[in-house]
């Protein structure tokens, strides 16, 4: 097995007395698509948010592209990084939210260029050319000067995907990207994600779209009560699950 792009080891996370993650291990190789499924409250979103350090972890560690996230390793010790350095690390990790979280006071193009323009100084025309390229990739070239509220939910989520790609991340995390969408708008977002997967982008997707998992995923992981209790290729996990709880969950959603 080649070195993983994302390596999650023994991650624990609690909110007070509530144990959300209880020792999660997950490895994602470069170019691979991993889909995480599971009942609500099982810790899927929290796991995703620990990978880019939006949530601090209590135990275990996460590396992306060989680099510890949120910490600097020296010998056997992990030193907590300053916020500035964590922000820099996040440039390697794209994140797409369930509720899009586009910046409503900026145009579509400004949403996409905001992050690359705020970091290391890059020439504006170069960044704008990249933004136009990304907007074309998600099929929204004609909406570059519109404001997010003028777009449909599906269009907004496609802009959010373009925005996440603008920093050329090593991995893109999707947190239930289609859950807030009207049913007829889900398809256009999944289509963009499929194209992204085909182009070799490393992706971790939390979703309830079992069809998408079957078609696109290299690995499906089933989470329950803060642990990954089963993972493997889609046919194995989705069609002949070994675990009783996986079977019960799939019986409900399929």
């Amino acid at each position, binding site marked *: 097995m080649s070195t993983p792009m994302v390596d999650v080891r023994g991650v624990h996370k609690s909110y007070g007395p509530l144990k959300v993650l209880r020792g999660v291990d997950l490895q994602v190789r470069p170019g691979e698509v991993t889909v995480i499924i599971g009942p609500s409250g099982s810790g899927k979103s929290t796991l995703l948010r620990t990978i*880019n350090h*939006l949530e601090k972890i209590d135990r275990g560690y996460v590396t992306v592209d060989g680099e510890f996230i949120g910490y600097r390793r020296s010998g056997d010790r992990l030193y907590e990084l300053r*916020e*500035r350095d964590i*922000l*820099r*690390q*996040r*440039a390697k*990790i794209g*994140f797409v*939210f369930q*509720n899009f*979280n*586009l*910046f*409503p*006071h*900026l*145009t579509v193009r400004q949403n996409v260029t*905001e*992050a690359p323009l*705020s*970091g290391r100084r890059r020439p504006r025309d170069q960044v704008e050319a990249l933004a136009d390229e990304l907007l074309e990739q998600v099929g929204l070239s004609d909406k570059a000067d519109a*404001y*997010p*509220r*003028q777009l449909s939910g599906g269009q907004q989520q496609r802009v959010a995907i373009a*925005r*996440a790609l603008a*920093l050329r991340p090593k991995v893109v995390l999707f947190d239930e990207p289609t859950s807030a969408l009207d049913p007829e708008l889900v398809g256009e977002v999944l289509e963009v994600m499929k194209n992204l997967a085909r182009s070799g982008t490393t992706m971790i997707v939390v979703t309830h779209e079992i069809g998408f998992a079957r078609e696109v995923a290299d690995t499906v992981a089933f989470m329950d009560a803060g642990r990954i209790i089963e993972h493997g290729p889609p046919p194995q996990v989705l069609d002949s699950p070994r675990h009783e709880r996986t079977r019960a969950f799939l019986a409900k959603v399929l």
Partner: protein
Amino acid sequence: MTAPAAIEAPAEPAGALTVVKARRPGRWIAGAVVLVLLAMAVNALITNPAWDWPVVGAYLFHPSVVHAVLFTVELTALGIALGFLLGTVLALMRLSRVPLLVSVAWGYVWLFRSVPLILQLLFWYNLAALYKHISFGVPFGPAFFSVESMDLIGPVTAAVLGLALHQAAYAAEIVRGGFLSVDPGQMEAAAALGIPRARQIFRIQLPQAMRTIVPAAGNEIIGLVKGTSVVYIMALPELFYQVQVIYNRNGRVIAMLLVAAIWYLLLTTALSVAQYYVERRFGRGQASALPPTPVQRVRRVLAVRPAARRRAAAGGGGAR
């Protein structure tokens, strides 16, 4: 027959029907009553010689009054600018994750909102009596140089300081409210994109917070225009003090108070108009299209009129 009746073709095309608007006599009666009352009020204002309109006219643009107006504007501008600057710092302290900063900001707002402005102004005015010298140097250590409080804080500085420090307490709460009104998802998205902290605040949070801040800030600015009149106790020549000086000399109390009232009215009107346009500026991206400004509306009506008249002349009648 199983098909519902509604499916059948209508008896006649919809275009043949004319809409007749409902009559509303109550509206006409209410309008007439209000109009009569208004006319009575205007008549009472104009015809009663006690209002002394010629004197009002004579003093409205009197140089000493215009100077006083400019000084009022200056006090307001400085009070608001410094007040909101300090208020923004206090709001950010209050929203920070450092308990000491949070407590200090809370304490400041508590103190300066609790003591009446007029008392605060008098404290600043008498600062020189409380502290004869103000020295600059190492805290609790040696001083590099010191100045007489009288020289550093004259009456004007005391007034500006008093207004600004008082205003800062209110501004802090308004700015904090603005920041709290921004969806937390915005900060999360900015953090996930690795946008530096200062830019998160000034580029992402603040412009969205402004939508909530501007209306409340408009209230505060207009409040302070009139609030500066409190400064008259320090014998500073702002508008209210100046008209008192004049009526103490010429005895035309009501006329001079009217002069002041008219100026406050004009200043407030100008600020209200400015606020309207500032709110539009920060409303971008909120509505799919912003409503037209009054100026645009007037232009549109002027542009539409001839076309409508032509249409009326050609077609005649119809539903109106």
